[in-house]
């Protein structure tokens, strides 16, 4: 069986891999590239734990084939902090105790970052709807939403 050769960019790094046609991008990230920060909670696009960006657009890595990444710019949780500097959202999530078990956290952070890039000043309702595709079973979302809104405010003030 012949594999597909894919050349892509992940978190700014040029990356090549071989995958099978059936492999989702999530399979590729986790099993072929060892980037296990993106999680598989459902495999059907219902939980958002595998949220990544493709050419800047928020998607579920479980609903995209690895082969489709050819020539694209992929962004994952592993690329969110710059060196030893956390993204403000990452910092606020820790400060606000916006995670309990942490399995949904990478996906929510990637999704929240995507929100703030488009809408630096979201209302609570906008944040809740934007993140509706990211399930969290531990927190009841309260502290997550507070962390996102607080990070947004800090980022606005810093810019």
């Amino acid at each position, binding site marked *: 069986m012949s594999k597909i050769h894919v050349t892509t960019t992940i978190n700014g790094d040029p990356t090549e891999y071989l995958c099978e046609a059936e492999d989702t991008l999530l399979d590729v990230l986790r099993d072929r590239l060892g980037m296990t920060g993106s999680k598989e909670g459902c495999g059907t696009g219902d939980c958002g734990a595998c949220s990544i960006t493709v050419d800047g657009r928020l998607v579920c890595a479980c609903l*995209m084939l690895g082969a*489709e990444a050819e020539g694209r710019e992929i962004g994952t949780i592993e690329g969110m902090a710059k060196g030893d500097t956390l993204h403000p959202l990452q910092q606020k999530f820790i400060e606000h105790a916006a995670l309990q078990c942490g399995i949904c956290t990478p996906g929510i952070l990637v999704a929240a970052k995507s929100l703030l890039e488009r809408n630096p000043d979201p209302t609570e309702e906008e944040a809740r709807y934007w993140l509706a595709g990211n399930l969290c079973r531990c927190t009841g979302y309260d502290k997550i939403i507070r962390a996102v809104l607080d990070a947004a405010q800090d980022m606005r003030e810093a810019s």
Partner: protein
Amino acid sequence: MQYLSPNTVEDAVQLLASRTGECRVLAGGTDLLVRLRSGMTEPDSVLDIKRIDELRRITREDGGWRIGAAVPGAEMSENADLVSDWPGVVEAVGLIGSTQIQGRATMAGNLCNASPAADSVPALVAADAVARVAGPDGVRDVAVFDVPDGPGKTSLGRDEFITSIFLPARPARSGDAYLRFIPRTEMDIAVVGCAVSLTLDAAGTCTAARVALGAVGPKVIAVKEAADILTGSIIDAATLDRVAQACSAAANPIDDKRGTADYRKHVAGVLARRATAIAKTRAGGAA
């Protein structure tokens, strides 16, 4: 399974025609990948149409809009002019799944998946939208209403695929709206969906209307009775009652895990009333 990613419509048509075994067209993939994953479908190949540039465009055409089959919902929602012309259609597309799904899911894919509950389809039917279909014999246009045949089935030929959907030009004082009912606020499949598109004259009388229901039959239902009630009326409270009754009567749902038939019939009327009121307001009518 083989992964095919042609760069032109012609190549895509040729690949489709020359394949032995089952080939599935991959647009946004938000339905297809779920089916692949669960083993519900095991095609010999998938044909990714996202590398075909012309299918990734939203273009004005004859006063209307042509939406490429590979355009994700999010791009439609971000196009202010499109939203202004067809707010109901864009809302309907925008309701498909989460933000993440919106980054991938396409209107054409929603149509071809042929789910009776597809959100965009009633809105497209109400809009009198037309799908452009490419195949070995060239290109043909087909009313969106005629694309789905029943749950999971379309009228497209084995070698055909949709390249774009055309939303026609709007007369002045037109408005459309789509509402769906779901148990949560997001992330659910429509229990009932209802779309209304209408045009008013300067006096506020409805001169043309189309009403469509989703998730209350094996495929989208165009409710001519409701459209007839609206046409010629000033859309007052009594009209809304009659529209609601007509839609409840036209609904032909089943009992399933998402709702009972009785519930769906009732809610079809509730949504018809509410969607009509929104469409009327959007057309410039008095609330």
